[in-house]
C-alpha cells in the first residue's frame, strides 16, 4: 500500500473516531479522550515541519467543526506539529532516524515512543486546556484536567498502537 494513501485513510479514521466515538464518551471528572495527537505523531519521519503543520491544521479544523470547539483543537495540534521535529531531534539517535522506520512503538521501541509521545501529548493537552479554561487562579484545575485527560489518552494511544502492531504481525 502506498504510504500516502495509508496516511489519508488513517486521517479519515482518526477524525471520525474522535468526532463520533471519543467526543461522545462521558467518563466524568471532565476527562476528554484525545486520539488526534497520535495521528500527528505517526506521520513519517521525513515530513518537514511546514507540511506537518498544514496537516495538523486540517485535522484540527475537521475535529473542531464536529465538536463545536471553534479552533481549540486546531491551535493545540498546530503547536504539537511545530514542536514535533524539535522533540524528535532532542531524543533521536545520533546518526539520525532510519527513513524506512516509522515513529511507532513497534518500530522505535516502547520506551522511545513513551518518552516522546508523552512529552508531545502533555504539551498538547496542557495548551488545549489552558486556552479552553483561560482563567487566572484556576491553574490547579487546568493541571488536573491535563493530567487526567492526558494520562488516559496516553493509555488509549498505547492500546491503539498494539492493535496496529498486531495487524502487522499477522501479515
Amino acid at each position: 500500500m502506498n504510504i500516502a494513501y495509508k496516511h489519508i485513510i488513517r486521517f479519515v479514521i482518526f477524525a471520525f473516531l474522535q468526532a463520533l466515538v471519543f467526543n461522545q464518551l462521558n467518563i466524568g471528572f471532565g476527562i476528554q479522550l484525545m486520539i488526534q495527537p497520535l495521528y500527528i505523531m505517526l506521520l513519517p519521519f521525513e515530513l518537514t515541519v511546514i507540511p506537518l503543520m498544514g496537516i495538523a491544521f486540517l485535522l484540527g479544523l475537521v475535529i473542531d467543526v464536529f465538536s463545536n470547539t471553534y479552533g481549540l483543537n486546531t491551535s493545540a495540534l498546530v503547536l504539537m506539529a511545530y514542536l514535533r521535529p524539535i522533540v524528535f531531534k532532542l531524543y533521536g539517535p545520533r546518526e539520525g532516524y532510519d527513513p524506512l522506520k516509522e515513529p511507532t512503538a513497534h518500530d522505535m521501541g516502547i520506551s522511545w515512543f513513551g518518552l516522546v509521545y508523552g512529552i508531545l501529548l502533555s504539551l498538547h493537552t496542557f495548551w488545549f486546556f489552558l486556552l479552553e479554561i483561560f482563567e487566572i487562579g484556576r491553574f490547579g484545575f487546568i493541571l488536573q484536567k491535563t493530567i487526567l485527560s492526558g494520562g488516559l489518552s496516553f493509555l488509549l494511544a498505547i492500546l491503539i498502537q498494539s492493535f496496529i502492531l498486531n495487524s502487522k504481525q499477522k501479515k
Partner: protein
Amino acid sequence: MRNLIAFLQRFRIFLVFAILQILALSWYVTYLSFPRNQFLTTNNNIAIKVLEWEHDLTKHFNLSKNNTDLQWENVYWRKRQPQFMYQLSRGKVKINDTIYEQQYAYIPAEVINSSVNRRNNYFTLNVGSAQGIKRGMGVFCQQGVVGIIHYVSQHYSLVKTVLTKDINIDVSIHMKKTDLPGLLKWDGRDPRYGMITGINNDLRIKKWSKVETRGGSGIFPKGLPVGKVSFTEPIEGQALWKVEIRFSADYRRLQRVYIIKNLHLAEQTALEDRIPEDDE
C-alpha cells in the same frame, strides 16, 4: 529589502506557525461570542448529516428513561385538564379566556449532538429558522433550564447551554419570605453542579431551597426550575455568598427539549428602548 527576505527565510517556520495559530485563535475568540459562518460550526451540511447518522444509532441508549420522563410529564398535565376533573359545583366553572392571554409559545426539538465535559458546551438541535427559531430564544427541558439559542441555520440550531463560561441567566433563589436574585454561572468542573453569583450575605440561605428563573429579560418565563442550593460559603473579603446549586436536569443524557418563543418580547424591548441613556 534583502535583509528582510533573509530574515523571513530564517524565520519561515515560525512565521507559518504564528499565522496558523492566529487563524485558529481568532476563530476561537470570535465564535465564542457570535458565530458568523455556519461552515465552521456543526450546522454545516456535511457535519450535520454525519452527526444525524450517529444520533440515529445512539438515541436508543437512554430511551426507556426518557420515555418514563415523558410519561410522567403527561400525567402531570393530564391531571390539570379541565375535562378530566370532577366538577363540584355544576354550571359555575367558566374559563374566561379574555383574562389570560398566551405569552409563550413552545417548539419541541431533539438534541442531535451534545457534550458536557468541555469548558463551553454546545448542543445541536434539529430545528432551525424554518420552524421560526431565532438567536436568543430560551431552551428548557422538562426538568429544568437548558440554555439560549446561539446560532440558527435553516434546519438546525446551536444552543449555548448553561454549561458555558458566560451564560449569565438571571435566576432567583426561592425562599420563604423573599426571593434572592442572582446570575447563574458554571465553573467547568461538574455538569451536575452550577453556581450563582451576586447574592448578598445578609440573609441565611437554607440548603435545598429552590432556584428558579426570574423572567426579567423576557427569554424565560418566571418560575422555570433550575436546581436546588446544595452548598453555600461566604466569599472572603466580600459581602457575598458563594452559592453552589445542583441542576435539576441531567444534561448528560438530555434528548427532548422545548424552545420558548416569547410572543411579547418585541413589545418589551420596544418599551425598554425608550429608557433614556445616562450620559454623564
